[in-house]
Each structure stands twice: as structure tokens, then as C-alpha cells.
């Protein structure tokens, strides 16, 4: 299954603005997603923004990337224009509804 538009955007952004190559950029974002309990194929732009603010800075810092805060803020700003596209209903959306009265 293809990865989501939000994931692709964050990876491309890192690749173009840092010394990380494609593989390293995608690997770094995947590690951040794993820590957040999210999956590349289904992550939304809103979720990616939270990861970019709360987890990605530490991951990038540990790889010696400079200007991490500005970089992550630019990812968050760019994600505003990323459409989530058609996604199937997630398991958590179903289980949230199953608890409804």
C-alpha cells in the first residue's frame, strides 16, 4: 500500500532542506512515526504536524541537523496545504463509534 501524502511531503521536505538523502530522510520520519504509534500509509497531515513538532526535532538533532526548530516549523506550515486524500476508515475511528450510545 502507498504511503500517505503527509508522509511523502515530510520526507521530501527533509531531503530538500538537509544533508539527508532520500533513504535517510524516510528512515528518520519512519522512526519518529513508530515512536508516535502512527503508520506511514495512513498518517494524516494533522497527525504529521504533531509528530513534526513533538518528536521529529529530537530525531533530527540526534543526526546532527542544524536549525531543527525552523525546519520542523516549515514542515508544519507546508503540511497545511497537503490534502489527506481518500483514506479508508481507521480501526480507531470504528472502535470509537462502537462505544457510542
Amino acid at each position, binding site marked *: 500500500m502507498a504511503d500517505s501524502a503527509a508522509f511523502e511531503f515530510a520526507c521530501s521536505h527533509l531531503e530538500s532542506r538537509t544533508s539527508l538523502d532520500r533513504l535517510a530522510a524516510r528512515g528518520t520520519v519512519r522512526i519518529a512515526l513508530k515512536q508516535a504509534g*502512527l503508520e506511514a500509509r495512513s498518517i494524516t497531515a494533522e497527525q504529521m504536524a504533531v509528530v513534526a513538532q513533538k518528536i521529529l526535532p529530537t530525531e533530527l538533532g540526534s543526526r546532527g541537523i542544524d536549525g531543527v526548530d525552523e525546519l520542523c516549523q516549515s514542515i508544519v506550515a507546508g503540511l497545511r496545504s497537503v490534502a489527506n486524500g481518500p483514506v479508508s476508515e481507521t*480501526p*480507531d475511528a470504528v*472502535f470509537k463509534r462502537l462505544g457510542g450510545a
Partner: protein
Amino acid sequence: MSALEFLALTSAVAFVTVGAAVGVKLMLLARRTKGLPERLIGASLLLLSGVAWPLLLVASGKGVSEPVIRSAMGAAALTMGVGWSGVFLFTWQVFRPSEGWARALALGGITVELAAAAAGAFRAFTLEDAGALRSPSVSGLVLLLGAQTLYVWTAVESFRYRALLRRRIPLGLADPLVADRFGKWGWTGLFGLGSITPAVVTQFTGGDANTPAHHLVVGVCGIASSVVLYFAFLPPAAYVRFVRQNAPIPAPGDGF
């Protein structure tokens, strides 16, 4: 009636009551939302706990006439086959709707369950000695092994998803109550697995199904299964508060 037989009977009554209540609740929800998952799991719970189990209890009663035993056993087999097929569909559609192996597992499981159920119903009406209906059979063994596969799959998927959501909670990306519901559904699967394991052992060994050990396992797993099912889908307000109050607090500064 021994204490262990009473425990097993209590667990059966608890499972019938809670399962049917949750089934009705989810069917009513499905009527409003038109959602497939709630329709599938609501109907399955209603069939398994509200129809199949009572039929099995009727068939195992003392002094029951032969036509009633045959009808109850046949209908129970069909109901269980359809009910477990619905749970196969639910697990596939909710957790892995676009993955080939999940589709193969679900459709294979449904085929096996429906075939075993049809064979069980045929046996119920054609076996010469109705008293032998409670003895082990290939159709009964296959039906139960299919259900065990389903319970393991459901538990693995639910616990995996609970683990994902627990990592999202501190980020403010998941509801602690929903994460808890995945865990409870996983435990429902595991206790369901435990409650039918004595029947599988009996089917394999041809031994006595009415041993104290069997009653103990069925009783404990049946009651535990009912409790977790209740807290998953009919949680009291106090339990909801407890789960939310004990969840990690999301850090500030999230989203756009």
C-alpha cells in the same frame, strides 16, 4: 450440581446476557449509523451469545426430547458458523481491509466455518442415535478450530492496535478510552479462546467433557470474557472516568 458445574452455568448465563445486550446495542447503533462494522459485530454477538449458547444449553438439558435435541444442536451449529463468520469479516474489514493475506484468511475462515456448520446441522438431523450428538465429530472439531484461529487473530490485531494508540495518547492523538476498548476486545478474544479450548480437547481426545477441570476453565474464561466485553462496549460512567483520569496527559503545542 457441583460448585464447578454451577460456575460453568453462571458463566454461560453471564455470557448470554452480556453478549446479547452488547449485540442489541451495536445493532441499534448500526441502524442509526448504517456502518458495516457495528452491523457485523452486533449481529455476530447476538447470534453467538443470544441464540447459539441458549440452544446448546437446551440441548444439554436433562429429559429433553429427541426432536428438540436434534433441532437445537442443528440450529446451534448453523448459528455458530454464521456468527463466527461475521467476526472473521469484522476483523478483516476493520483491521486489514486492503491486505491480500487478511482477505485470504477471512474468506478461508468463513468457508471452513460455514462448511463445518452445515455438516454439523446435517449430522444433527441424520445421526441415528441422537444421544451420540454430544460425542466428538469432525465437523465439531473443524468448527471449533476455525473459531480458535479467529480468536487468536482478533486478539493479536486488537492488542497491536492498543499498543499503537497508547503511544499516541501522550501526543493527544488518541482517546484513552478507545485504546482501552481495543485491549478489552483483545481480552474478549483470548478468553473466548480459553472457553472453547476444553471442547477442542474433548473433540481431539474423545474424553469426557464434564470433568471438573473443563468446568473450571469454561467457567473462569466465560465470566472473564463477559466482564471485559461489558467494560468494552457498555462501560459505566465511573469506569470511563477512571480510564481517562489514569491516562498520560498530552503535552501542549500540537497540530497546525
